[in-house]
């Protein structure tokens, strides 16, 4: 779910509070991981119990809070699952990578054919065009190497790393060095948008939630709704409803979840409700310790019955995967793009005794057909990726594929 505002912390010496923090993390996992058997035999060997004393001793000997954080991160990484994280404010002075402020400049970038290029633009954003290659932000070269093993979640991490490098603080001006098609170099100075009033949830605050509705296709008869995070529930869901109502006579509808890392999980159910007609439908099941919850979908009156396409990529995670995978299982949507991140565990975030934030998974998610998406992701029905040539021609191939599919499937889609 997550972009996190960290608590106020700087290099405090390790003291009993840190041990209390260690105990809180260790016990939370022991008590709340949905599958105790997983903790008895961790992927890298050993059990969660066996980690307790060695890591507790390391925390006791830690010089400062930053070191404690590093030790705890190492410990929770042994669980081998997504949605375990410790967050706090840290200085990364020795890193060559630019650390942005989290506010998007109005465009998105991706790694296409080995180059960092503009892959998406916010509506009415005209200072930059698709396909431009980005070389540096405020004089700092864009980095694309990530120090993680090659996993499905590499795409998610790379996406987040790239968007972070191009982001700034609200109101801040940044310069961007581009190479245009044909080799022309261009420097563009952009002022970061102010906060747009998007509401977060719990400790996830301070983000602008990008959402966009448009009518696409040759006759402007295909609805398109893009959401870059499942937050700002109070405004996004009514906007989505409005999009559905506007699109009552559309030939089809596209939900674009590319780069969407998730958020408030029940938004997936709420959005799916506009595309099903029968009661008793669900997107899957969330298995917690002692509690199994269905991702139930409540059919809405005056929903949309036409063809539905969902766009995903390797940075579509969590709630995005629940929505895409669930609709795919229900045979209600055709999925386009690239395999998703495989980071699909429902999680919560709590404050630790030392003020850091601890995100931990509380459940396993299994889709309606019995698929565990964690570590696997959602495989698109049609794999389609950006190409530099297409982007330079201002074409978004996954969107085009979805539109073409809609036009080729004019009949009313299967609805359950």
């Amino acid at each position, binding site marked *: 779910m997550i972009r996190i505002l960290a608590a106020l912390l700087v290099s405090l010496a390790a003291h009993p509070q840190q041990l209390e923090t260690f105990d809180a993390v260790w016990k939370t996992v022991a008590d*709340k991981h949905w599958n105790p058997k997983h903790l008895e035999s961790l992927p890298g060997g050993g059990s969660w119990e066996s980690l307790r004393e060695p890591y507790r001793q390391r925390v006791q000997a830690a010089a400062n809070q930053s070191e404690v954080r590093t030790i705890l991160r190492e410990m929770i990484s042994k669980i081998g699952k997504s949605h375990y994280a410790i967050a706090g404010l840290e200085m990364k002075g020795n890193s060559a990578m630019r650390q942005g402020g989290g506010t998007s400049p109005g465009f998105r970038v991706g790694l296409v054919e080995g180059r960092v290029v503009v892959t998406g633009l916010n509506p009415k954003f005209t200072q930059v065009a698709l396909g431009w290659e980005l070389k540096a932000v405020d004089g700092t070269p864009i980095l694309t190497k990530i120090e993680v093993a090659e996993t499905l979640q590499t795409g998610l991490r790379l996406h987040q790393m790239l968007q972070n490098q191009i982001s700034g603080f609200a109101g801040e001006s940044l310069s961007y060095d581009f190479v245009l098609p044909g080799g022309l170099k261009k420097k563009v100075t952009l002022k970061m948008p102010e906060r747009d009033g998007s*509401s*977060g*949830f*719990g*400790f996830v605050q301070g983000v602008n939630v990008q959402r966009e509705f448009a009518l696409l296709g040759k006759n402007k008869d295909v609805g398109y709704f893009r959401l870059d995070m499942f*937050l*700002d*529930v*109070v405004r996004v*869901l009514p906007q989505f409803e409005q999009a559905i109502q506007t699109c009552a006579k559309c030939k089809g509808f596209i939900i674009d979840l590319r780069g969407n890392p998730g958020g*408030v999980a*029940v*938004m997936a*159910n*709420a959005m799916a*409700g506009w595309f099903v007609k029968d*009661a008793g439908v669900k997107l899957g*099941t969330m298995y*917690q*310790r*002692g*509690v*199994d*919850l*269905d*991702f*139930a*979908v*409540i*059919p*809405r*009156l005056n929903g949309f019955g036409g063809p539905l396409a969902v766009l995903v990529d390797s940075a579509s995670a969590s709630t995005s995967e629940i929505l895409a995978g669930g609709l795919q299982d229900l045979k209600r949507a055709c999925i386009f793009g690239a395999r998703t991140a495989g980071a699909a565990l429902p999680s*919560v*975030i*709590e*404050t630790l005794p030392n003020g850091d934030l601890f995100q931990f998974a*509380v*459940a396993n998610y299994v889709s309606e057909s019995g698929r565990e998406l964690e570590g696997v992701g959602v495989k698109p029905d049609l794999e389609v990726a950006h190409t530099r040539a297409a982007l330079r021609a201002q074409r978004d191939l996954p969107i085009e594929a979805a539109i073409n599919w809609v036009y080729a499937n004019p009949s009313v889609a299967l609805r359950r």
Partner: protein
Amino acid sequence: MRTLLWLCAVSVSFAQNPADKILERYLEVTGGKAAYDKVKSVSMLGTMEIKGQGVKGEMRMYRKDGGKYYTVVDLPGIGKQEDGSDGLTVWDKTVLGPRLKTGVEKFLATCAAGALSEYGRGPLEKDNCYSKAELVGEETFEGRTVYKLRMTPKEGKPEEQYYDKETGLLVKTRMIMPSPMGEVPIVAVVNEYRVIEGIKTPVKLTNEMGAVSMVMNFTSVKFNDSVPETMFALPPEIQALVKAGKK
């Protein structure tokens, strides 16, 4: 004649279910049946907090004779989650969308509304809601001895209620709540009672559902306050569902 009366009394005493005695004692220690009989409506204002997650919002509950109720929780970042009944139609309107409650869910929601609180059906609607009450035994809860009762609703799954042996107060309920997301096990703990207009009323409660713990804290509770009928009117989305005959 006196002997016959005495025998009858003994007979009744022996025949009385020990669980019933515990439930009757709850009524007594919290104010007595007469005090409850005077209550025709309830307004409860306070907060709901998702413990440890930085989420806290306003909560309001209204109850009125005739099975009418309306509850709204306004959580920052999520918005209003509403739940209500006009005495006939039982509904909710959450992030998932508007919905009519039917079957067991409708029955239990109506029972809870009659019990004046959100911690479960409690003993107040015993005859209307439950077909059986049994004393299972004694346990220790938070260092105190409690009676454990198994209460079987006329519809739905049995629940366990725990009454403090010394004070007679309900301290915990374990129940299975039907919902669109399936059957949800809930442990509801009463953290605090306060005497309001002669009735010892639960004003702070913690509901645990799996990994999530929610704390409800009512700072204002009023009995027989003027609650307008419009409070229980069906929202337009619910009216549309009723009209469409949709569940």
